[in-house]
């Protein structure tokens, strides 16, 4: 059960660590790298609070092994804002009051960023289906959907930017 050395890119920065194979990706991020923006909610792959981008795909990091991410590129909520300026999704969640307690927000934003990468102009139904794996216990989702719609509009108006995690 020796520790294994892993190297990966997190928000564009090269990182490495010696980890037990059983270490979960979310614990690598939070406990080893100190990136506590990624939350642990249900701890059983239902709630989506731990959603991060792994090689450009949104995944639930409570149910991925850290060793499986060896060599991969990760995107987390800490990588969204640039130069002190909130990402359009973050700004939209603020503007539209897309959160109350805020616990689900990092996962919602990472999932929404994947969704808009796949489908830059989603319908309301597509947004709702796109965040079906992310639970919010406060808002009733209405303002979250509005926030994602706002961000979709702003991102479409902006010149193309490189994706957060690829």
């Amino acid at each position, binding site marked *: *059960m020796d520790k294994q050395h892993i190297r990966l890119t997190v928000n564009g920065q090269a990182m490495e660590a010696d980890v037990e194979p059983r270490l979960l990706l979310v614990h690598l991020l939070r406990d080893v790298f100190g990136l506590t923006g990624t939350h642990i909610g249900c701890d059983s792959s239902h709630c989506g609070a731990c*959603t991060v981008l792994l090689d450009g795909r949104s995944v*639930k990091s409570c*149910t991925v*092994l850290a060793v*499986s991410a060896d060599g991969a590129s990760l995107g987390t909520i800490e990588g969204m804002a640039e130069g002190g300026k909130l990402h359009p999704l973050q700004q939209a969640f603020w503007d539209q009051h897309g959160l109350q307690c805020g616990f689900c927000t990092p996962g919602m934003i990472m999932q929404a960023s994947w969704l808009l990468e796949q489908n830059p102009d989603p319908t309301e139904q597509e947004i709702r289906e796109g965040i079906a*794996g992310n639970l919010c216990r406060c808002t009733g989702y209405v303002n979250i959907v509005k926030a994602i719609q706002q961000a979709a509009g702003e991102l479409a108006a902006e010149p193309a930017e490189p994706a957060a995690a690829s």
Partner: protein
Amino acid sequence: MIPPQFDYVRPADVGETLRILKEREGEAKVLAGGYSLIPLLRYRLASPALLVDIRDVSGLDQIAEVDGELRIGARVTHHQIETDPIIASRYPILADAAPTIGDPQVRNWGTMGGSIAHADPAADWPAVLIATHGSIVVESADGRRVIPAREFFIDTFVTAIEPAELLTEVRIPAPRGRSGGAYASIERKAGDFATAGAAVQLRLDDDGRIAAAGIGLTAVAETQFAATHAERMLIGTQPGHELFEDAGREAAAQSRPVADNHGPVEYKRAMAAAMVERALHRATERAREA
């Protein structure tokens, strides 16, 4: 919860994977997406000494039609199936089932091969393979077997895969003639496992009668199974509302659901019948358009 300790390897190809599985026969588990296996580890329902992660194994992530069959590599994700153009145009039964699995994150990383090897009785793919008379390719250091789906799913979490074997591919016969397929399922809430589901693949003859019928049921027995009684009563008949209602009832009668938090036995039987009926209608419409 934290998984128990295990060793971890990430072989680069199928040959190396098979060597490891043979050397560590009975001690090793194959890891693909992990959305089934990691929860088992976390709840301490499984404690393999070694995980063999097939993330780097090449050649297992393709979808292609070859020799009259659709071939889906073991590491193809549910999302790949959901967005594949060949599947969207020619295999509506798969296109129906893919978006009902888990949620977007699960479909992004979870694989068809992993779901099939795990064999949860409420998983959606097994019934689809049963309805289409698909097969599952498994390989070991000693050779390769192609196992018909109808012989593959043995019991809850039990399949025909031997400990030193690796599931490498899933095969589904290409539809021919006036064929149509559909998958219908009911779940309590978004992202939940199905309460009941039905996969149907039909072929019509020149007079519009049913020439071939495959029906697989999800979540209403210890494992997915073929509703053979209903299949037999459909052959040679003209599609119709009454017939499909009877076929739904016949399929439900062959089911063996158990009461749980998804509902009592009577409810599950009623839902199985309704899903069979719904899938039969949709499959018929598609066959008529084919």
